[in-house]
C-alpha cells in the first residue's frame, strides 16, 4: 500500500484577541491508501482542526501536508477547492444536506462543480445512491427521509466523486444505535470492498472500534497510534 497522506510537524496556531491558541502542536502521521482510520479525542483536543486540515478546508500554520504525493500546504483557495472536489468526500455529523432538494440532486453536488454533463451527473449520483441502498428514493427531499437515510445520502454525495479519502466527522453523532450500525457498516464496506481510505473522527470508542487503526489526539498532539483487532470481527458486523 502506498502512502496517501504524509503529515510532517503540522502546527496550527490561532489568535483569539491577544491569546495564542495552539490547536495542533507538531503532528506527524502517515496514512496509507486503503486504511480505515479512527481519530479519537475529546472536544478541544484538536481533532477537528486536524480533520479540517486533512480535508483541505484549512491550511496548517507550519509544517508540510502531502496528499497523494502533492504538497497541499502551499495551495491556493481555488486549488484547494479542486482537491476537495476530486480527492475528498465529506460526511458530517449533522448530514448537511441542502434542504428541500432531492436526494439525487444532493448526491450530484460535487459533480455539479466538476462541470460534468447533466446526464452523467444524474447517472453517477443515482449509482451512488444505489450503492448506499437508497435506490428508488432519488426524489425524496431530506425531510422525507429518516436520519439514517439522510446520512446515507450524505455518504452517496461523498463517494459520487470517487475520492481517495472519505472523511467522516462524527458520522453517527445524531443517529440512534441501529442507524449508527448501518452507517458504520456502509463505511466499512466502502473500505473493504472498494478499497477506499476512510477516516472517521469520533469521541466514541465503540465507533472507533470499526477502524483498523486508531489515532488518539490530545492537546494538539497524537498521543497514541495503534492498530486494532481485525475490524471484521467487530460484534456489530457479525450480527
Amino acid at each position: 500500500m502506498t502512502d496517501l497522506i504524509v503529515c510532517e510537524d503540522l502546527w496550527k496556531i490561532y489568535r483569539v484577541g491577544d491569546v495564542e491558541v495552539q490547536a495542533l502542536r507538531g503532528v506527524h502521521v502517515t496514512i496509507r491508501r486503503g486504511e480505515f482510520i479512527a481519530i479519537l479525542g475529546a472536544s478541544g483536543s484538536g481533532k477537528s482542526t486536524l480533520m479540517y486540515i486533512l480535508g483541505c478546508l484549512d491550511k496548517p500554520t507550519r509544517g508540510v501536508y502531502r496528499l497523494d504525493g502533492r504538497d497541499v500546504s502551499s495551495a491556493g483557495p481555488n486549488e484547494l477547492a479542486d482537491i476537495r472536489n476530486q480527492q475528498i468526500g465529506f460526511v458530517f455529523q449533522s448530514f448537511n444536506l441542502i434542504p428541500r432538494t432531492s436526494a439525487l440532486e444532493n448526491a450530484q453536488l460535487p459533480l455539479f462543480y466538476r462541470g460534468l454533463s447533466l446526464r452523467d451527473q444524474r447517472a453517477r449520483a443515482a449509482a451512488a445512491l444505489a450503492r448506499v441502498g437508497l435506490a428508488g428514493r432519488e426524489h425524496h427531499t431530506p425531510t422525507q427521509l429518516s436520519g439514517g437515510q439522510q446520512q446515507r445520502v450524505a455518504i452517496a454525495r461523498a463517494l459520487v466523486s470517487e475520492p481517495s479519502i472519505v472523511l467522516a466527522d462524527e458520522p453517527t453523532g445524531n443517529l440512534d444505535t441501529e442507524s449508527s450500525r448501518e452507517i458504520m457498516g456502509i463505511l466499512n464496506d466502502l473500505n473493504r470492498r472498494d478499497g477506499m481510505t476512510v477516516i472517521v473522527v469520533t469521541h466514541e470508542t465503540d465507533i472507533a472500534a470499526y477502524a483498523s487503526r486508531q489515532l488518539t489526539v490530545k492537546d494538539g498532539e497524537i498521543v497514541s497510534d495503534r492498530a486494532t483487532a481485525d475490524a471484521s470481527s467487530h460484534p456489530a458486523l457479525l450480527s
Partner: protein
Amino acid sequence: MFAFLALTLTTALRILARNRMRAGLTMLGIIIGVGAVIAMVGIGQGARDAIHAQIASMGTNVIIILPGATTVGGVRGGQGGAMTLTVADALDLKKRVPLLIDTGWAKRDVMQIVYGNKNWNGPVNGISPSYLTIRDWGFSSGGAFTQVEMDTAARVALVGQTVVENLFDPGEEPTGATIRIKNVPFKVVGVLAPKGQSAGGSDQDDVIFIPFTTAERKVLGTSFLGAVGALFASTASPDDLPEAVEHIRDVLRSRHRLQADQPDDFTIRTQVDIGKVQEGITATITNMLFAVASISLLVGGIGIMNILLVSVTERTREIGVRMAVGAKRWHIIMQFLIEAMTLSLCGGMVGILIGVTASKLTTSLAGWPTVISFQAIALAFLFSLAIGLFFGLYPANKASQLNPIEALRYE
C-alpha cells in the same frame, strides 16, 4: 460550464418559486419602477407623436404671417385687427424671397351656412389658388377650384368634414349640393380630407373654403380690395424656415415703409414655434416621471440586495457544504448573482406587462394616444438586469468570502 449555469438557474427559479410571497414583495419595487417607465415613456411618446402629427397636418414647412395690431389714439386693438397685409405683399414676397416655393392668402369670418332645413355656424375662408397646396390639403371627394372660378369670383365652395357632418344627413353626397352662405347660394364642388385637431387644439375640419375673390366681393366684404386676413408661405424644407422668416421680415418692413425704430406691423409664425412649446411641456413631464420611476427602480434594487443578504445568512451552511464539495469563489458568486438577476428580470418582465397594460388602458379610458416603444421595453429589460447585477454583487461577494469551516458550523 453550461451545465453549471443551467442548473444554477433552475435552482434559483426553484428557490424563488418556494418563497413566492417573499420573491413577489422583493420584486415589487422593480415591477413598479419598470411599469412606470414603460407607461410614462408610452404616454410621453404618444403625446409627442400626436403633436408631431398635428404640426405635420398644418404643414411643417408653412409660414403664417398675421397682420399686426391697430393703434387708434393709443388704444391697441387685438392682433390681426389692422389691415396691413395685402395680396400685393404675397405676390411680391414670392418674387423677392427665393426660399419660398409659393405664397397664398386668405381671409375668414364665422358665418351662418344653411342647407335644407339645417344650419351651422362655421368659419368661411376666402382662399387664394395656392392655399390648398401650401397647406397640403387633400380631398375625400370632388376637387379644387378652377382658375376660372377663382378669376370670376364664382359661387363655389369646399366643405370640411365637420361641416359635412353638421349640415348633411349621413350618407348624403355633399358634392353638387347647393348651400347658402349669408343667403348667397354656393355650389359645393368638393369635400376636404379630414385633418384633425391643430397643435392649438382647434378643429381644422370645421371649415368652408370659397375663392378669395368671391369672399371679398360677395360674402365677407372688405375695407379695400386686396386686404387679407393672413398670408401663407411654404419652403422646400423645415430647415429653410428661420432664414426665410428673416427675409420675409425684411421685405415686408421695406414694403410697409417702417423706420428702424418702429415695431413690425405683422407677426410671423411657424409651426416649429408652436410645436416647441408643447414638446417642451411633454418632455418636462416625461423627465419628471422618469426620475420618479428611477427612484422606484433604485429602491427595488435595494430591496433585492436586502433579501439576498437575508438569504446568504439563512443559507450559510449550504454555502459551507458547497465549498466543502469543491465550489470555488466564482461558483458561489454566480449562484447568488443569477438569483438576483432572476429576481430583477422576473420583476422587470411583470413590470413591462403592467406598463404595457397601463398604456393601453390610458388609451382606451382617457383617450390619450400612447406608443408602446420597443426601445423602452428593451431598455427596461436591460436596466432591470443591470440592477440585479449591481445590487446582487455585494451579497454574492459576501457569500463567496465565507470561511467554509465557520459556515459549516453555523447554527
